[in-house]
């Protein structure tokens, strides 16, 4: 499954594999994507965002499945809505689970090979299925497969023609841990081969394991882009709110305020306080020793804003896109 030469090689120009320029899309007055611009080069890029953030709409526009209302999408400098020939460089793993009824995996992947005019579609289908560790001779129809197996069949049909751009919409959804690890390895390998791999996810830890460049999308806007570690640091650097329960909550909060581990405190009832924290590491280092010094029991230390939605809300409020890269 070697990737074909990019279109740019023939023209002498060097347009990026994926260029999204000032793209907006709305549905019946509701803005799904707003003024998003980015470019994606070879390697794995993760599109991270909560459900409903606009990731799937962006990916659909990126492949040409949907037309932007404003702006432009180019694959190797070509508009995929206007020139379908560029789709020979694209492999999509869509989010929806459905496959053609009563069709075996080998038939399903072979169909993709035929429609991409691959020479020896039978051999290509067998190779693609083997690459995702599925049996090409399995007689069962794909619609009887487990979710994990169906995901791999979908990946096989996306890889069968050796595309340069691989787009996967939430490909790890519903997979067990072993299948996740295997699929992540495959995506990393494809990226290492010089292909442009775009993977969307709403799970922060999944994206971390891709260990790659990240585009963070929230409320239809590009909230941040860059190396994952930089974004993670930004997330860790933001003010956090933690609820602390103790039998000496006032004394403990006062001590933590005094030594600078927290920047604000709000009592909630008799045994709880919500602490505002800027330096999570410092707080972690101080909270237990301080409680021990005071002879106070620690009953609960609960982050109240560690979910992704909170992180994204913070990022949306942070300085504009590109600020992290």
């Amino acid at each position, binding site marked *: 499954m070697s990737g074909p030469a990019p279109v740019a090689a023939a023209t002498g120009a060097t347009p990026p594999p994926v260029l999204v320029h000032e793209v907006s899309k709305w549905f019946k007055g509701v803005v799904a994507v707003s003024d998003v611009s980015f470019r994606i080069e070879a390697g794995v890029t993760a599109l991270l965002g909560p459900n409903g953030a606009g990731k799937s709409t962006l990916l659909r526009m990126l492949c040409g499945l949907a037309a932007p209302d404003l702006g432009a999408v180019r694959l190797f400098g070509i508009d995929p809505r206007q020139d379908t020939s560029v789709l020979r460089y694209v492999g999509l793993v869509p989010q929806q689970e*459905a496959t053609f009824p009563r069709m075996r995996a080998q038939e399903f992947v072979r169909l993709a090979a035929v429609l991409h*005019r691959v020479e020896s579609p039978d051999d290509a289908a067998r190779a693609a299925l083997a690459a995702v560790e599925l049996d090409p001779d399995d007689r069962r129809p794909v619609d009887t497969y487990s979710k994990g197996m169906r995901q791999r069949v979908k990946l096989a049909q996306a890889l069968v023609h050796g595309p340069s751009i691989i787009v996967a919409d939430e490909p790890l959804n519903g997979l067990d841990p072993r299948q996740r690890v295997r699929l992540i390895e495959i995506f990393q390998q494809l990226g290492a081969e010089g292909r442009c791999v775009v993977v969307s996810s709403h799970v922060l830890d999944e994206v971390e394991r891709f260990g790659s460049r990240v585009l963070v999308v929230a409320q239809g806007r590009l909230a941040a882009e860059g190396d994952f570690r930089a974004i993670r640091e930004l997330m860790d650097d933001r003010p956090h709110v933690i609820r602390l329960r103790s039998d000496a909550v006032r004394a403990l909060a006062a001590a933590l305020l005094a030594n600078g581990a927290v920047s604000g405190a709000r009592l909630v009832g008799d045994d709880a306080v919500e602490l505002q924290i800027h330096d999570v590491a410092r707080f972690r280092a101080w909270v237990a020793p301080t409680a021990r010094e005071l002879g106070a029991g620690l009953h609960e230390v609960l982050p109240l804003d560690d979910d992704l939605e909170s992180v994204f809300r913070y990022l949306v409020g942070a300085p504009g896109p590109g600020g992290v890269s």
Partner: protein
Amino acid sequence: MTLAALYRTILRGCTSRARLVGFGAVALVGIGVAALLGSAGGDPVGRSAGFVDWFGLSLVAPVAALVFGTASLGDPIEDGTYVYLWLRPLPRWQISVAAYLATASVVVPLAVVPTVVGAGLLDRSPEVLVGAVVSTTMAAGAYSAVFVLFGQVTSRALVWGAAYLLVFEQFVARGGSGLGFLSVHSHAVSFLARTVDRRINLDYFSRPTALVVTAAMVAVMVGWSARRQSSMDVA
């Protein structure tokens, strides 16, 4: 090769066992009714043409085309598998042509065979058989093109398609030759009436007109579907 692959995939998708069994049952009922009508007296050619009109042209051809035609593109669009046909480096008109061919290749035999068998039970003259074969093929072919387009451009295509059959074909088009010019049924029944040399309701047109307009309807509907492929958004 890509057209053939698209054709096979769409045909396989829209022909479920339940649908085929259902229309097989309808065919048997139609033939049974024809057998019963055969024992009645009167003009056998007129009775045979009447059977072709109500069973073939008004019932089996439009309803089979509605069911299979709307499913050909409508089902994959609905369940999200359309992306596996659409996002490929091929001319998108092939999808529309393949969908039409797949629909017509199942609807035409499903409509023509029981209609001709039933008509033959009532009268076996060559005019009746030719009229039954050609007019039912015209109706099945044209309705197939109409409903492939319905499945592509509308959600709830079955409902809209049924409304089209009941409101336009069965009601509005009966308003005269002007409105009838846009009716598939009028052209098919005109061909039948001229061939068997009997008057049938809505037989406004000559045989050449009926044939040409029916072919033009197919071309326009398939062309419209093909053109729509490039501008549509796919889920």
